[in-house]
């Protein structure tokens, strides 16, 4: 009888204990890459340089409730990144890197965050970007765009960057 009660308690409470250990990733800022697009002033020439934007996207990794934050304030996590194209051209190469560490949320200490400091291409398949522990907010990212040319013609391009945070166990 005691065994059965324990089993029942386990079935009921274990999901409650564990299912709340979810992290959320929040993103700020839409990105308009055109701000630094150089004008072509000489006939016969093409665009010559890549476009780079500094710290235009900010990523925050937070707990979804305070109960879990109290239980495990330094939970490890990893962020993966991929893109979903709305209107895009395969010649356009989008890269990103982490330009800072962000800050601990309501905490004076330094954020524990690693990797992602060099430019890497964003593809349509999720790829590991950076990792950290606990709640970190306002992690700044820079974006770089290569491969644009007059040969693509005139037009609007749009892609969506998808950040996925995983519990890192």
């Amino acid at each position, binding site marked *: 009888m005691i065994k059965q009660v324990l089993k029942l308690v386990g079935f009921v409470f274990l999901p409650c204990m564990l299912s709340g250990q979810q992290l959320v990733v929040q993103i700020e800022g839409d990105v308009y890459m055109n701000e630094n697009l150089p004008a072509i002033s000489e006939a016969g020439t093409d665009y010559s340089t890549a476009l780079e934007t500094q710290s235009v996207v900010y990523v925050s990794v937070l707990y979804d409730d305070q109960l879990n934050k109290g239980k495990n304030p330094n939970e490890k996590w990893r962020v993966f990144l991929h893109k979903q194209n709305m209107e895009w051209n395969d010649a356009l190469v989008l890269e990103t890197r982490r330009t800072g560490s962000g800050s601990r949320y309501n905490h004076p200490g330094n954020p524990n965050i690693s990797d992602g400091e060099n430019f890497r291409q964003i593809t349509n398949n999720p790829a590991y970007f950076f990792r950290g522990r606990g709640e970190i907010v306002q992690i700044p990212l820079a974006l770089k765009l290569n491969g644009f040319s007059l040969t693509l013609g005139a037009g609007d391009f749009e892609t969506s960057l998808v950040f996925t945070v995983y519990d890192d*166990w």
Partner: protein
Amino acid sequence: MKYGSWLFFVLFPLITFGQWETGQVSVFFTLPEVALVDIEPDGDNRVQFTVLPDSESGNAPTVEHSTDNSLWLNYSSALPATQNSRSITAEVAQGVVPRGIKLFLEASEFSGNGGGSPGQTAGPIELSNQPRPVISGIGNCYTGDGVGSGHQITLAIEIADYTAIESAGETSFVVLYTLTDN
């Protein structure tokens, strides 16, 4: 059932620890329309032809250096998706060609280090004060910049009507090239 229960206790934490959550941000990028054309070499790109009387009475006047191919046409073009191509037209825009003289222009096929879909030559045309296509079928492209890139221009004059030739002194006129939407 007994082992199934314990298996559940073992696997459930593994399942729940691998949880994930996503966030998204949109990236926008616009390439504008571009339509640029120029003649190389930059600066002084004058071409001079001279019609001289023959030294022997009764002979026809002669044209000194009747052709010139020192000029090159460069262009950059980016079209919206709704537009197929562009053309380059040429016309005499300032001044007039002296009476009795015909001026012809021909663009070579594209050569150089450009990219994309450059246009094709329309062959030799006679220049007048009405724009005529010199190059057609220009898509999204760039020809490269400078002499040796794009389309080499050959200008030629001929005396078409000896009865109309008259001493006109020095006459100058401007050939205008326009990159135009089709």
